[in-house]
């Protein structure tokens, strides 16, 4: 099997996963008691109104036909109207998802640029106070839910010290940049408004940090563990025997192979950030998908729920696919094994 075939196979699995997720939500949505048409129209609707909506929603047709219609809608990005906002759910998400995505991307960056160096540091100074400190930090990150971090950091930095803004995305009075992508980083810098961008960054720090801490902890732990594991391998001894400097051994010969498990798990963590963003957004009043998601769940707004869950699923699947590619790049054995199987 060629490497490209392997990737194609992974891609097909992603499609199967999305189909599975859509079928699961469809089934759950259909087993709940209550007539969806009645719920959509409210208690005052007449019998004929309900009957005509039932026809329009294909509710009188067999289940597999209903699933086909539903799937067709999903493929066109049509999730139907949200009962909560009375707008197409896809339009709601187009407005809200970019700002969540932006938060998640920054948190993901923090995970990598803080977590991996911490792990390298801990492995290089193994069994010293540096190692112990990093271990305590990562323990704290793993065992504390993101919303508790959010509240604690907010109390310290926004209220007690007053150095960072409490909530929101921009200070009052700062004109938001014209919406192009919905992500302020791009919109502000593209529109030539760096001061808006810096204001945004100040608002971003606390949510992004609270969101990333669990991932930072995980990254540091994993990087340390696999660096320590690889440090005992013969090829490192060999490099040392050749007189290569310790720093070069650590950063060149040990880092790349030890990143393989880290990247795999970090990919999962990165995808999980989208779920945790729900918790952080609600603390910092971040105008993203979270509040919408919770509201539509509490309002039993099925179309919007399907939209939110499918967007999360799609994000998860795309990230996992990218991780497969990245791991293939980092680990030539994966690529080669696929080649050998072909031979």
């Amino acid at each position: 099997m060629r490497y490209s075939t392997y990737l194609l196979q992974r891609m097909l699995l992603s499609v199967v996963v999305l189909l599975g997720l859509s079928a699961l939500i469809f089934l759950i949505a259909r087993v709940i008691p209550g007539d969806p048409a009645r719920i959509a129209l409210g208690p005052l609707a007449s019998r004929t109104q309900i009957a005509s909506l039932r026809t329009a929603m294909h509710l009188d047709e067999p289940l597999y036909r209903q699933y086909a219609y539903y799937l067709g809608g999903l493929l066109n990005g049509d999730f139907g109207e949200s009962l909560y906002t009375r707008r197409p759910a896809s339009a709601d998400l187009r407005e809200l998802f970019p700002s969540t995505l932006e938060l998640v991307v920054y948190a993901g960056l923090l995970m990598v640029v803080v977590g991996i160096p911490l792990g390298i540091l801990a492995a290089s100074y193994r069994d010293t106070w540096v190692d112990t400190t990093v271990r305590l930090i990562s323990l704290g990150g793993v065992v504390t839910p993101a919303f508790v971090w959010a509240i604690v950091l907010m109390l310290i930095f926004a209220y007690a010290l007053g150095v960072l803004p409490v909530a929101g995305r921009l200070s009052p009075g700062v004109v938001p940049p014209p919406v192009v992508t919905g992500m302020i980083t791009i919109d502000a810098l593209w529109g030539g408004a760096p001061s808006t961008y810096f204001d945004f960054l100040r608002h971003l720090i606390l949510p992004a940090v609270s969101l990333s801490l669990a991932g930072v902890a995980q990254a540091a732990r994993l990087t340390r563990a696999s660096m320590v594991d690889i440090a005992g391998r013969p090829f490192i001894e060999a490099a040392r025997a050749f007189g290569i400097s310790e720093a070069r051994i650590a950063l060149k010969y040990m880092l790349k192979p030890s990143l393989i498990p880290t990247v795999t798990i970090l990919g999962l963590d990165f995808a999980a950030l989208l779920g945790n963003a729900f918790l952080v957004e609600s603390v910092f009043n971040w105008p993203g998908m979270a509040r919408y998601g919770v509201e539509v769940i509490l309002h039993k707004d099925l179309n919007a729920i399907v939209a939110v869950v499918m967007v999360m699923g799609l994000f998860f699947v795309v990230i996992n696919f990218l991780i497969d590619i990245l791991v293939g790049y980092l680990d030539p054995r994966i690529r080669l094994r696929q080649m050998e199987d072909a031979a």
Partner: protein
Amino acid sequence: MSTAVAAPAADQLRRTWYAFSRNTGSVVGLAVVVIVVLATALAPWITPFPRHARAFTDFEHASLAPARPHLFGTDTIGRDILTRVVFGFRFSLLLGVVVLSAAVPTGVMLGLVAGYYRGWPETVIMRVTDIFLSIPPLALALAILAVLEPNLQNAMLAVSVMWWPWYTRLVYGLVSSLRNEAYVQAAQIVGASPVHILLREILPNCLPAVLTKMTLDMAFVILIGSSLSFLGLGVQPPDPDLGTMVADGAKYMPDLWWISVFPGLGILVIVLGFNLLGDGLRDVFGVEV
């Protein structure tokens, strides 16, 4: 080999305990878990205001900052936070225990079957497991809670549904290698039934890994459960739940900070305990989970 070895078994236990007790973290974890379990069991007797655990109002003593006799302060309707945190541990433990006792047997059984019988049972079970594992964890729970009423039982159901595949995968991996062991082949040759082989020969050898993972997962299930109730999708008021309490307090930041911060620390303590204990077990058993 089960009856004649009472003394060596005790010896083994003592040795395991010795290895376990060398690690400060493990002992701290065990101590935290024991204290939390005892505190929840004895909550009605040891908490200062047991009546405050449920619906109760006392506006005269509302929103008091931490001071005697309310060491953690009171909430906006005058309930003692310390009492509610201790009672809140009950819901956390309950969630963890119920979820794991639903998810673990299911996952383990499927893993045993998939790992032992090759062919279509393996394909079907493992593909379904893969799909479940590929669904973002919180999304599945949200989808389930979306259509059911948000309450403790449904939160348990939602978390259980997302948890079993991890055990299927773990046990499947173990069985795949154990099925070629000499003692399994010996049992096959003397004509032992597959049920006997799976439950009496293979399962006991999977238990250290499963128990270790269960301990670590108590921590994660409690974390997820508190996140769901933080969003208002888990335990409903007036029942005291740590996540719900943090969410309540968040509305009164920063003035009434204690309403959120102490329940938040409560989550930290209980999760930390199970996490350290699980890490300790992993080292002692020498298993990968």
